[in-house]
């Protein structure tokens, strides 16, 4: 079966520290992968998407970057976190039957 794993569930980081959030998909190959951010009480903002290994498209200029080192792995990073990077981060993938499924999310608090 196809599943998506996202970790950690919660993360508290000081301003200026690095960030690495990881997302992996199982049971499929070469999926489209997405990183979204959701501010408190708000909708979803698409940050990055990837259609294949090493292929990253950025939707919003920001302090974050994404990488796809393996077919089913998608990583969201930052070299130096800002207060404004706080939020709920969701990884998603496009299934073979053209549906979009989400991971369980990471609540990031930058203090």
């Amino acid at each position, binding site marked *: 079966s196809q599943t998506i794993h996202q970790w950690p569930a919660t993360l508290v980081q000081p301003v200026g520290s690095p960030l690495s959030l990881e997302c992996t998909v199982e049971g499929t190959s070469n999926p489209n992968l997405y990183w979204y951010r959701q501010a408190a009480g708000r909708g979803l903002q698409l940050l990055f998407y990837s*259609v294949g290994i090493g292929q990253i498209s950025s939707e919003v200029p920001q302090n974050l970057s994404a990488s796809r080192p393996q077919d089913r792995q998608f990583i969201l990073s930052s070299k130096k976190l800002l207060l404004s990077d706080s939020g709920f981060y969701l990884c998603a993938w496009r299934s073979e039957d053209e549906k*979009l499924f*989400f991971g369980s999310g990471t609540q990031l608090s930058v203090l």
Partner: protein
Amino acid sequence: AQTVTQSQPEMSVQEAETVTLSCTYDTSENNYYLFWYKQPPSRQMILVIRQEAYKQQNATENRFSVNFQKAAKSFSLKISDSQLGDTAMYFCAFVPSGGSYIPTFGRGTSLIVHP
């Protein structure tokens, strides 16, 4: 560019009653998918239902059904026999089929089901 509008920031309904959430979208695409997602307090995004634009028949999933009006670019979600567990944020989403698969989400509707 596509836009998705959910004009109802908040809705409430009594348990066992029916409620309809509205969604409109704007696109020049002819082939696309429309989705409704549920986000309960756990914040997990759960796929509720999907409609394919080329299908005239409205999608249904148990107590959830849609009213898809392609010409009007309207895609509402009807929840029948509302349950307390339906309390959540509901997001409408548009995805063009073919080419890039880039979802656009509405800002959400907060639904509260009262006992």
